């Protein structure tokens, strides 16, 4: 995907949520990135490292937790996963499922020195 513009979004959200005077002391930005969010974690980290240098966040780093893709099947009531990110229950073969996790990207918390 376009990890550069996502990295930009993340910097903006952090700036909105952290007092200005604390921004340069941000040490780590903790993210949760879903398996099928469309984001490649390594590319995101790389892009972040490239664009952070002209911002108050230039001394910070990203830590990314990968969140697995988990479905709840409304038919057989089990939790399953799927290696293509499609809403197919691999236990019973039905598509009547709800996505529990694995498609979002979230900024969870920030560690400040």
């Amino acid at each position, binding site marked *: *995907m*376009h990890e550069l513009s996502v990295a930009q979004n993340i910097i903006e959200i952090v700036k909105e949520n952290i007092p200005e005077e604390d921004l340069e002391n941000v040490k780590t930005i903790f993210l949760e990135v879903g398996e099928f969010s*469309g984001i490649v974690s390594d590319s995101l980290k790389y892009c972040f490292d490239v664009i952070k240098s002209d911002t108050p966040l230039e001394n910070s780093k990203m830590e990314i937790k990968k969140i697995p893709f988990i479905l709840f099947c409304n038919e057989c009531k089990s939790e399953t996963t799927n290696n293509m990110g*499609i809403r197919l229950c691999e236990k019973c073969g039905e598509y009547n499922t709800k996505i529990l996790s694995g498609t979002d990207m979230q900024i969870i918390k*920030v560690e*400040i020195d």
Partner: protein
Amino acid sequence: MSIITIERKVLEKNDELAAQIRNKFKRFKTFVINIVSSPGSGKTSILEKTIEQLKGNINMAVIEGDVQTDFDAKRVEKYNVPVVQIVTNGGCHLEAKLVQDALENIDLKGIKFLVIENVGNLVCPAGYDLGEDYKVVVLSTTEGDDKPLKYPKMFINSSILIINKIDLLPYVNCNIKELRENALKINPNLKIFETSCTTGEGIEEWCKWILENIKK
């Protein structure tokens, strides 16, 4: 050392804006589709055929999205339909903010049908809500019948699939039965149309579906 909890989705801003745009479309009773595909699948051609067929029945407007040029807006302009061209200058997908900005140049009063033609890209537009009623993915026969399996997110997030350029089936290595099966394997709720802008085949059924969805 301290921890500040944020817990915000990265795409939250886009989603909030998209919800606002969706409300606006609801207030004006405008039916809106977001057409996505690889470059060259025939989005603009399908749009032209659609305008030709529906222009006399309903008021339409178009938002065009491209990396460069206003070629597509110029094509639509010929039909005297209100159109705004978004040029992203490198952006690989449309976002809600760009659509919101474009809507400042469209008077939605009386517009029953709005088409947002996204940037040609079978990957990135899948993740961005623009406030539409339906995402329509166009896949042409020249692209191959395995594409739904290779680009699942786009087909999962779309409600309609238009298989275009069906007139070329005798000349290309595309098994249309397999294409349909692959698409339905990824998303069994996909409604599928088959069209050719060259022969006009399938355009009427597609337009009939649009008319059925116009809000009274």
